[in-house]
């Protein structure tokens, strides 16, 4: 199977302190993995490394065929990221953010809104609504991988049921 996310010995060090120990993983379409880290901060940084948002101090991250360090914009197009606190709390903010995503991803606004609304409608009764909105935002552009930062296992299962075709990575604390 072709990998959609490949991480090779990625680690993160700040001010001489190793916050994320080297880790490697490979995920293909439809595969699931949980990255367990010793603390909440480590888990947050590891999630952001896998979503190509934070650059690892050592190691490399490939999303699809793109090296996240050399082609960050192309890599980010293929990854959806859901932070633990969600991106937007209100329905009004949700609509604005969908429009923002459509413009930045250079996609059709109405189609992006339809995608996001469908994902939100499927999730809203089983997970907190603000988190459902964050997931809808992450998945609406048609990504091949989604990274869920420090999330409840039950909520992860709901996303996996909804989109069995994409790679799903979650982070958790030991």
């Amino acid at each position, binding site marked *: 199977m072709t990998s959609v996310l490949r991480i090779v010995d990625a680690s993160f060090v*700040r001010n001489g302190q190793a*916050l994320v120990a080297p880790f490697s993983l490979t995920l293909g379409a439809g595969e699931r993995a949980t990255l367990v880290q010793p603390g909440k*901060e480590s888990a947050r940084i590891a999630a*952001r490394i896998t979503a190509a*948002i*934070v650059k690892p101090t050592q190691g490399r991250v490939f999303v699809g065929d793109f090296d996240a360090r050399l082609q960050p914009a192309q890599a*980010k*197009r293929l990854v959806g990221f859901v932070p633990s606190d969600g991106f937007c709390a209100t329905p009004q903010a949700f609509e604005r953010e969908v429009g923002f995503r459509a413009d*930045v991803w*250079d996609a059709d606004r109405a189609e992006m809104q339809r995608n996001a609304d469908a994902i939100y409608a499927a999730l809203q009764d089983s997970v907190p609504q603000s988190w459902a909105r964050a997931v809808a935002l992450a998945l609406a552009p048609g990504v091949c991988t989604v990274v869920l930062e420090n999330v409840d296992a039950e909520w992860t299962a709901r996303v996996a049921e909804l989109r069995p075709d994409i790679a799903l990575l979650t982070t958790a604390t030991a």
Partner: protein
Amino acid sequence: MNSTRATLAIARRHMSAAWIISIATRVSFGVVYAFIVTPATNPWVFYILAILYAAFAGAELRVRDLMYFAAPLYGRQLARAHALTALLGALAPPAAFFAVQTLRGLPWSWLAMLATGAACAVAALVGLSVSLRRPPAEGYGTVAATSYLAIALAAGATVVALFSLGVPIYGWLAVALLLGFLALRAFGETLARYDPVD
């Protein structure tokens, strides 16, 4: 990728109700100040206030929002979009001031208006670097944030000082363009290297 569409989307995202209120407040100050200032007033009082407002127009933007770093954008694209918003915020108060002064029959020379606009633009572009060094919990209290604010004020003041000293337009305009370009480039590179881990 449609760069212009992305740039405008980011600029629009900045223009929340809070941003509009903040700019409207500054424009109001500009209008009120235009009624206070007379030809006898030292123009430096106006210049410094305008540059100060401009520096904060760059510094107050929420450029550390995780949404920007999760989006498929390069640092330079983000920098241009943030700069567009900062420049709008920076130029609105002096524009309101000059408009009211002109209506009151106290016209300024177009060179003075241009120099003020250039100084405000430079201050706003340097001020953008403050926004990255301003942790939400600490406000402007960090050494890095305060230092960049001081640099923004100094850069803006340099442009109007050159104008006031009688340096020809191509001299101070070249300095303004150079300072603005360097500030925007430095901001873009810092954004590209920035890791939103907090």
